[in-house]
C-alpha cells in the first residue's frame, strides 16, 4: 500500500476514535446524571444537600447580588443616554426590567455561578477522586453518586434560579437608583411603564425556565468533570478549566436557542 494512503487511513481511524470517545463521554455523562439525580433521597441526604446549598447557594449570593446591582445601574445609565435622545426616558423602567428578566439575569448569574461554584465543585470532587476517597467509599459500601454527587447536583439545580431572581430584583433596584434618584426620571413612570409591559408568564416565567436549564447544564458539567477527570494534580486543573469553559459556552449557546424559541415569535 502506498505511503500516503496508509497515512490518510490512519488519520481517518484517529478521527473515528475521537468521535467514539466524545460519544462515550456524552453517554457516561448522561448515565451519570440520571443515576445520581434520581437516587432515593434520605434523611442523611437531606442534611448533605443542606450543606451544599449553603456552599453553592448562600455563599454565592454576595457576588451575584453585587454584580446584579452594578449591571442594573449600568443598564439604566446607558439606556438613559440613548432613550433621552428620543424623548422616551419614561421607558427606562421597562427597558431595564425586560433586559434583566429575559436575558441578563439568567445568563450573567449562570456565568458567575459557573465561575464561583462550578469550578469549586469540580476541584472538590476531583480531589476526592485523586485522594481515592471515592474509591474507599465504594469499598465500605457507600454509593459515592448518592452521597457526594446527588446533593451537589440538587443544590445547584435549586440555588441558581433563586440567585437569578435575586439578581433581577437587585438589578431593577439599581436601575431605579440611577434612573430615578440620580438622573431624575419620574418615579411613577419608571414603575408604571414596567408594570404595563412586563408579563409574569412570558417574561418572568421564561427567565426562570432559562435559569433552570442553565442550572442543570452548569451543575452537571461541573460535577461530571470532577467525577470523570484524570486523578492527578494536572488533571484537576485541566478539569476545572474545562468546567468554566464548557459551561460558559453551553450557557451562551443554549441562551440563543432558548431565546429563539421563547421570544423569537414576538
Amino acid at each position, binding site marked *: 500500500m502506498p505511503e500516503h494512503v496508509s497515512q490518510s487511513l490512519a488519520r481517518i481511524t484517529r478521527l473515528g476514535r475521537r468521535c467514539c470517545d466524545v460519544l462515550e463521554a456524552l453517554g457516561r455523562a448522561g448515565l451519570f446524571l440520571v443515576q445520581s439525580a434520581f437516587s432515593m433521597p434520605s434523611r442523611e441526604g437531606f442534611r448533605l444537600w443542606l*450543606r451544599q446549598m449553603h456552599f453553592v447557594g*448562600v455563599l454565592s*449570593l454576595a457576588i451575584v447580588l453585587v454584580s446584579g446591582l452594578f449591571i442594573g445601574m449600568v443598564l439604566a445609565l446607558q439606556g438613559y443616554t440613548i432613550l433621552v435622545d428620543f424623548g422616551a426616558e419614561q421607558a427606562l423602567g421597562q427597558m431595564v426590567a425586560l433586559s434583566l*428578566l429575559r436575558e441578563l439575569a439568567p445568563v450573567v448569574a449562570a456565568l458567575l455561578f459557573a465561575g464561583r461554584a462550578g469550578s469549586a465543585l469540580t476541584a472538590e470532587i476531583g480531589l476526592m477522586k485523586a485522594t481515592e476517597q471515592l474509591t474507599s467509599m465504594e469499598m465500605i459500601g457507600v454509593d459515592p453518586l448518592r452521597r457526594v454527587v446527588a446533593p451537589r447536583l440538587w443544590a445547584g439545580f435549586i*440555588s441558581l434560579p*433563586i440567585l437569578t431572581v435575586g439578581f433581577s430584583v437587585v438589578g431593577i433596584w439599581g436601575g431605579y437608583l440611577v434612573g430615578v434618584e440620580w438622573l431624575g426620571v419620574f418615579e411613577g413612570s419608571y414603575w408604571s411603564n414596567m408594570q404595563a409591559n412586563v408579563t*409574569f408568564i412570558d417574561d*418572568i416565567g421564561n427567565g426562570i425556565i432559562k435559569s433552570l436549564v442553565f442550572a442543570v447544564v452548569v451543575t452537571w458539567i461541573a460535577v461530571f468533570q470532577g467525577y470523570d477527570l484524570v486523578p492527578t494534580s494536572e488533571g484537576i486543573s485541566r478539569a476545572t478549566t474545562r468546567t468554566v469553559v464548557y459551561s460558559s459556552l453551553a450557557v451562551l449557546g443554549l441562551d440563543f436557542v432558548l431565546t429563539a424559541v421563547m421570544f423569537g415569535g414576538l
Partner: protein
Amino acid sequence: MKRSKTMEFGVGLFMLAGIVGLVFLGLRVSGLSLSAPTETFRLEANFANIGGLKPRARVTMAGVTVGRVEAVELDTEWYDARVVMSLDSELEGQLSRDTTAAILTAGLLGEQYVGLSVGGDPEVLENGDSIRDTQSALVLEELIQQFVSTMAKG
C-alpha cells in the same frame, strides 16, 4: 451542632429570599394583582386601519384604563380590522349603543391604545356586541403625505 443550625438558618433564609424576590417581581415589576382576575365582557369594533395596535394594548375611557385588547384579526367580509376587547364587567350594560372607539397614540411616537367615549343612546351595548362608530389610527406617514400634496397644490 451550632454550626449546622446557623447553616440551616442561612439556607432557609436564602430560599425565603428567593420566594420574596419572586413575589416582588410578580407584584411590583409585572403588576400582577393579588385579587382574582376581574370579570370581563367582550366588545368588538371594526377599524379601517389599526396602525400599530397590538393585543394587550390598553382600552381607556376618559384616560382611565377599563380593559385590554384581546385580539386583532382581519375581517375577511369587509377587509378591515376587527379588534376584540375585554372590558371590566362593571361597564356591562352601561355603555350606550352609539359609543365611539378611536385608536389613539400616547405621545407623538408612543404606543397605541383604544379610547372609548360614550354617546347618548338609551340602548346599551351587551357582551359580544360591536361598536359601529370607529375612528382609525392616525398614520403619521399618511398625514405627512397629505401635508406635502396640499403644499404642492398651494
